[in-house]
């Protein structure tokens, strides 16, 4: 362990924290409000730089200390796993911010505060990626959700937004309480707060039943955060009611933070308890993908559809967890790799999909699928993006999603002799087909249906795209296509996290 | 051994109670007389023979004899409990006031913190009283009181932090000793500390502390919660008899308690130079009481000098002036502490 305060290792967090404060300060100054957004973007960009230097440092010889950096008595670890996920959070925050700029500016929102809260939430996610003890990860998780509660209710005059925030808040608080209860049981049994300590304390020995209970409660707490069935009730309403850029962030940043917490806590703290969390997550994964997909089929609102789709996608990400109890060694690493890779691909696709929804809403002022019909006739470019992102989410080969699904199935099949793994694979395959149906339905509505008569022709194709939104759409579209053709670009980062599963 | 413990405890409790009651009664009398003279009146004159010294006692007896009226709309349990909560919060402060090196009922490690924590309980009592009375004036008074107490709790706490930084301890005895041993640039003789060093170094903190304690006590110029001209008597409106007496006593006991804390934190407490610790146990209380009396006089003086602040002015004073200044005070103190 190096010095107590390793500034290099903490540089991304420090820069981000400084940015968060700077955004608030810029908001106070008598300058145009979008300066705050620019400050945030610059800060996000600046905090990616130390991530790269840290990543290089573990490769280069002249760097004094390479390898994982342990800070604060093993409770904060900067390794390749955390670096990759921090990168994911920062990049998705970058895109979320771009999505938000036009939206926040056009309506009566508190702009500076909006960016401040968004960045603070990202800061929490970044802290979570490195946290290796119960307290840090809980505080990080709260920092992710706290601003999200507020952002969900940002449209103050809109009753739906209020409902969204309230539901999200109450469920979030409940899940935090369950999580804390579980953590307290785990701490009570093992007497350890750090994950390495918990892992060491659980080797082989006979553990009392309350520990199992604690593990289950912790899983439940995180399941709320990743909106996995049966803890998903808040998701569609919150996604629909919250401002759309916030929904985009919730479905990617906040969800990814929940997954990171789950990954970290399952693969490190509960590495010896795979027999407990494997089957539990098997059930949750199957329920999420099945229920999410089946309900999504019946949705008539694009945002609700994406909400249920994100529940289903969450089920796909959870599937590799389920086989972790059946495999060892390289295949265990494969399970972790599958989830992380899925997260990386999903982030771009889903942000893009929400970007498209926002652009579509600026055209037709509605997120109802019926009013989107025939969009290709007056907005062909946008309709092309609909095809890209929704087919990518469905997993159609030349686009990004197929590789994510491939590694997910690979991971599931690696547990193949086991009947449960086979069953999971079959269910996932059926679900992938069902999912294709409703993604394709959106594409069909946009391209093949006729323009609804009640929309006056003059209003169609009205306002042009906001430049920030266009930039966000461009980035995500390019990322979706390029990573679909060359999946190695992103899966390289997934590979880098592999070793996390095999322990430290 | 166990018996000994209970006996000591009993004596300590009796002493705390006695000190509180006497302090409250004396300051009530002070208030009556001082306010009278400030208004060119004579004040109480007959009770007790000379100067009307027994007036507070007579008042107390009168209140005890009176019938206690509990109106119909009152939430009886909460209504009855409220005065006890208020009085308990105040009484608990007396436990840690050091009257001498050993003249303290309980020398806690975190004396100051304890005082701030326990005094916040009174707020709840005030709210209980205001709500349970089932009377709009009382409710308004309770709400105002709560808003005010929350707002001024912060500068009160923040003002203390400066002293704690300088002294390096939270114990009240420790803070007194730290003031006794203060050295200006490492050379000053001890006797110079008769001029309390923290009064000079923490003048800003002292001013904030006094202002905030006035507000915490809901005394003019911060008596919006019981503003007679608009709220009848605020959260006290429905109280009568013994329970009213408790609120009344609680207010003056609180004044003495906060004055004692202020004297200990900023004015050197019980300490005198050239006096051994043993002797200080006897002289200390006198010294402290003198300082308390000065501060109580100051409180009374302010009450009869300043007009009442409007509610919004009152909140602005706390949030826009006192808290930022207190924060700045902490920063400056901390920086100076590190530099020197």
């Amino acid at each position, binding site marked *: 362990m190096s010095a*107590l305060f390793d500034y290099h290792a903490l540089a991304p967090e420090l820069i981000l*924290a400084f940015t*968060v404060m700077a955004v608030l300060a810029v908001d106070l100054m*008598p*300058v*145009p409000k979008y300066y705050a957004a620019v400050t945030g973007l610059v800060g996000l960009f600046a905090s990616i730089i130390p991530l790269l230097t840290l990543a290089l440092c573990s490769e280069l010889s002249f760097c004094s200390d390479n390898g994982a950096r342990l*800070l*604060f*008595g093993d*409770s*904060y670890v900067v390794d390749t796993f955390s670096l990759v996920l921090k990168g994911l959070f920062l990049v998705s925050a970058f895109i979320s911010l771009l999505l938000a700029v036009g939206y926040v500016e056009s309506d*009566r929102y508190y702009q500076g*505060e909006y960016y401040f*809260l968004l960045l603070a939430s990202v*800061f929490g996610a970044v*802290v979570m990626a490195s946290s290796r003890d119960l*307290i*840090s990860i809980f*505080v*990080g998780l709260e*920092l992710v959700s*706290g*601003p999200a509660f*507020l952002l969900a209710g940002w449209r*103050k*005059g809109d009753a739906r937004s209020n409902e969204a925030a309230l539901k999200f808040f109450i469920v979030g608080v409940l899940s935090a309480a369950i999580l804390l209860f579980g953590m307290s049981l785990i701490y*009570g049994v093992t*007497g*350890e707060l750090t994950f390495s300590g918990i892992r060491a304390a659980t080797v082989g020995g006979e553990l*009392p*039943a*309350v520990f*199992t*209970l604690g593990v289950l409660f912790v899983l439940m707490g995180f399941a709320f955060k990743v909106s996995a069935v049966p803890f998903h009730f808040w998701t569609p309403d919150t996604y629909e009611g919250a401002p759309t850029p916030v929904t985009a962030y919730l479905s990617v940043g906040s969800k990814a933070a929940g997954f990171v917490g789950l990954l970290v806590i399952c693969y490190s703290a509960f590495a010896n308890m795979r027999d407990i969390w494997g089957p539990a997550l098997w059930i949750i994964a199957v329920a999420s993908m099945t229920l999410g997909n089946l309900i999504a089929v019946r949705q008539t609102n694009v945002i609700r559809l994406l909400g249920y789709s994100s529940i289903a996608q969450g089920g796909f990400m959870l599937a590799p967890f389920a086989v972790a109890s059946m495999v060892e060694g390289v295949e265990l690493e494969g399970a972790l790799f599958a989830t992380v890779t899925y997260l990386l691909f999903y982030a771009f696709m889903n942000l893009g999909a929400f970007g498209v929804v926002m652009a579509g809403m600026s055209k037709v002022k509605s997120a109802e699928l019926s009013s989107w019909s025939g969009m290709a006739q007056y907005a062909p470019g946008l309709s092309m993006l609909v095809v890209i992102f929704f087919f990518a989410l469905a997993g159609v080969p030349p686009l990004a999603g197929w590789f994510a699904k491939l590694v997910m199935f690979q991971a599931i099949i690696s547990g193949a002799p086991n009947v449960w793994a086979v069953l999971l694979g079959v269910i996932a395959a059926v679900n992938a087909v069902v999912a294709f149906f409703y993604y394709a339905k959106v594409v069909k509505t946009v391209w093949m249906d006729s323009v609804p008569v009640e929309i006056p022709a003059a209003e169609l194709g009205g306002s042009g795209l906001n430049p920030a939104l266009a930039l966000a759409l461009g980035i995500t579209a390019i990322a979706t296509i390029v990573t679909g053709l060359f999946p190695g670009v992103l899966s390289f980062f997934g590979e880098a996290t592999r070793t996390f599963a095999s322990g430290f | 051994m166990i018996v000994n413990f209970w006996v000591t405890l009993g004596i300590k409790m009796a002493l705390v109670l006695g000190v509180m009651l006497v302090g409250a009664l004396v300051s009530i009398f002070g208030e009556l007389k001082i306010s009278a003279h400030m208004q060119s009146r004579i004040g109480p004159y007959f009770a007790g023979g000379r100067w009307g010294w027994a007036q507070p006692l007579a008042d107390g007896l009168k209140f005890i004899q009176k019938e206690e009226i509990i109106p119909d709309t009152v*939430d009886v*349990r*909460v209504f009855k*409990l409220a005065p006890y909560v208020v009085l308990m919060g105040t009484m608990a402060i007396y436990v840690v006031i050091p009257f001498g090196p050993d003249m303290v009922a309980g020398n806690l*490690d*975190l004396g100051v*913190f*304890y005082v*701030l*924590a326990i005094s*916040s*309980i009174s*707020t*709840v009592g005030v*709210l*209980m009283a205001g*709500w*349970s009375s089932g009377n709009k004036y009382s*409710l308004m008074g*309770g*709400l105002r009181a*709560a*808003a005010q*107490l*929350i707002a001024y*709790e912060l500068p009160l706490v923040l003002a203390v932090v400066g002293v704690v930084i300088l002294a390096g301890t939270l114990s009240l005895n420790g803070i007194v000793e730290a003031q006794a041993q203060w050295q200006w640039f490492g050379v000053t003789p001890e006797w110079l500390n008769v001029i309390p060093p923290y009064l000079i170094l923490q003048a800003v903190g002292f001013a904030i502390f006094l202002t905030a304690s006035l507000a915490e006590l809901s005394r003019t110029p911060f008596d919006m919660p019981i503003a007679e001209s608009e709220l009848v008597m605020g959260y006290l409106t429905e109280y009568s008899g013994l329970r009213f007496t408790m609120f009344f006593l609680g207010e003056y006991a609180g004044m003495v308690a906060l004055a004692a804390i202020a004297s200990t934190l900023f004015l050197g407490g019980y300490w005198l130079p050239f006096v051994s610790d043993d002797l200080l146990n006897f002289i200390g209380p006198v010294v402290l009481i003198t300082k308390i009396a000065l501060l109580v006089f100051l409180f009374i003086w302010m009450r009869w000098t300043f007009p009442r602040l409007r509610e919004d002015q009152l909140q602005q004073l706390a949030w826009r002036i006192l808290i930022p200044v207190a924060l700045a005070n902490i920063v400056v103190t901390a920086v100076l502490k590190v530099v020197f």
Partner: protein
Amino acid sequence: MGELVVFVIFAPLALVGALTMVAARNPVHSAMGLLMTLFSVAVFYVSNNGHFIAAVQVIVYAGAIMTLFLFVIMLIGVDSAQDNQEVLPNQRPIAVALGLALLGLVLAAGSQGWVPRGTGSPVNGTIENVSDELFGAWILPFEVTSLLLIIASVGTIALAQFRPRAIAGDEADESAVDGELV
């Protein structure tokens, strides 16, 4: 011995407070019950040498949070009788059944022993010990928590305060839309 006496006195109080909190019809009574529980817990901290944490418990919960609770309850002006109409049919029996099932599960698990082994030596919860830990090993969660507090205040103000659109450059029309629902 002393600890036992304290426990015997305050543990029932804490439970009674918690039950009052849940069962009371009147929100203010609920708040009072919660206050009693929190205060009793503070007493337990004291009896376990956690003076600092006890004081924090009192100042934060009793002082700040409960005051805020009461404040809000009074501002909203809840009537003593709450409307208990339920939208979902049979919600209550199902909730009770599930809750009892969970309780049974927890108790069944706990019957095998809650904390199997004492860990480490008891630490004296003095300020020095607490602050050494807080500003040493736990500095990061501590700072993150401070950010959490800033978020709470910023967000609360932004959500609670209605302000007209304030885009730089059109300050002029600010007064025109002042007070309008945003």
